[in-house]
């Protein structure tokens, strides 16, 4: 096809692109993936039976705020890396704030717990499966973000893959909270974070291949 024909055919279809289109598309990708993850959690793992009373407790909100703030922070990076000439990513250092806050709570926990119980508190009931479940549950959200990127233009593919993995992991962990009965800050700090980091690592590995356009 010559260039003139190409221009004419491209100009035949010029839909309106609202100002907020980029954010909306990324939000839709995450929401679509999150819906699948929520179904997997509800059907495959089961919602924790005491969810209602847990929602009046501290540890449930501690977990939610931790994973939710990581998810929101990662979305900031996703939005930036979805553009071809990304603006500064320095703001991503703020992702350390929830980590440090949770570590602070964890130190408080250690102080309040006799040292012979430390290991049990740290490992909880589910340390062996938690990171892997978070990683698995992140997959649908990551796929949703891949869909978002199809109309966007990431040029730093590895970074975009990593940050998309981070966002997917953090939101997957947020949904996983509906199932997971663990209460310790140290547990969340270690095993949730590990799952989220695994997702980010997988994103970094897959990004250059899957995000290419």
């Amino acid at each position, binding site marked *: *096809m010559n*260039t003139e024909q*190409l*221009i*004419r055919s*491209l*100009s*035949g279809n*010029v*839909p*309106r*692109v609202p*100002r907020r*289109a*980029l954010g909306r*598309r990324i939000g839709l990708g995450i929401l679509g993936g999150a819906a699948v993850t929520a179904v997997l959690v509800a059907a495959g793992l089961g919602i924790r039976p005491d969810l209602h009373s847990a929602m009046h407790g501290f540890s449930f909100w501690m977990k939610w705020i931790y994973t939710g703030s990581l998810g929101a922070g990662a979305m900031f990076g996703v939005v930036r890396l*979805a*553009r*071809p*000439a990304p*603006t500064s990513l320095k703001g991503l250092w703020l992702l350390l704030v929830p980590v440090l806050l949770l570590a602070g709570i964890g130190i408080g926990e250690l102080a309040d717990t006799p040292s012979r119980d430390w290991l049990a508190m740290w490992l909880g009931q589910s340390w062996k499966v938690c990171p892997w479940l978070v990683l698995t549950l992140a997959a649908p959200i990551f796929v949703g973000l891949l869909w978002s990127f199809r*109309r*966007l*233009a990431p*040029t730093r593919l590895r970074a975009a893959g990593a940050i998309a993995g981070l966002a997917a992991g953090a939101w997957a962990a947020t949904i996983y909270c509906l199932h997971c009965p663990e209460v310790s800050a140290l547990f969340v700090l270690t095993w949730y974070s590990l799952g989220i980091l695994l997702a980010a690592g997988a994103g970094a590995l897959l990004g250059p291949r899957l995000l*290419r*356009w």
Partner: protein
Amino acid sequence: MQIGEAQLKTWMTSGLDGDAAAHEALLRALVPLLRSFFGRRLRDAGDDVEDLVQETLIAVHTRRASYDRDRPFTAWLYAIARYRMIDHFRRRKVSVPIEDVEAILITEGFEDAASAKLDVDDLLTGLSPKQAQAIRDTHIEGLSVAEAAARASIGESDVKVSVHRGLKALAARIRGEQP
């Protein structure tokens, strides 16, 4: 005279608002810009240049949601063009001699350049028209000395001297000395 940032950006924003005619005008105006962008970086590869121009036009069209209306259009455009070119090399498994990498990565019309252009225009008005033109042609538009000489219908050495004297005068002005 090539179409500038302001006009391109206007077309782009109208296109984003659904104006098909503006979108078409934009794509049409990009063709010569992209041809020279790729042409300068891929020597002796006419077909590849045209392929890359088309691929970039398609990306500009399908990925226009990634354009931020608050930022310069040309920065966005050339970032896409540069990505398409790097991908092109990767696909062909072409290895690029290291001394060419710099030329490939030259930033073209980036944000800084866009605002710098205003300053440069301001500065150049203080020079003689011949010096200003010679600097504009060789240092901003990227013409060779021979091309600039042909365009201004003067000798090549005249171009070189004009550039040299003009830059010297500019440097003096920036340092705050009056020539």
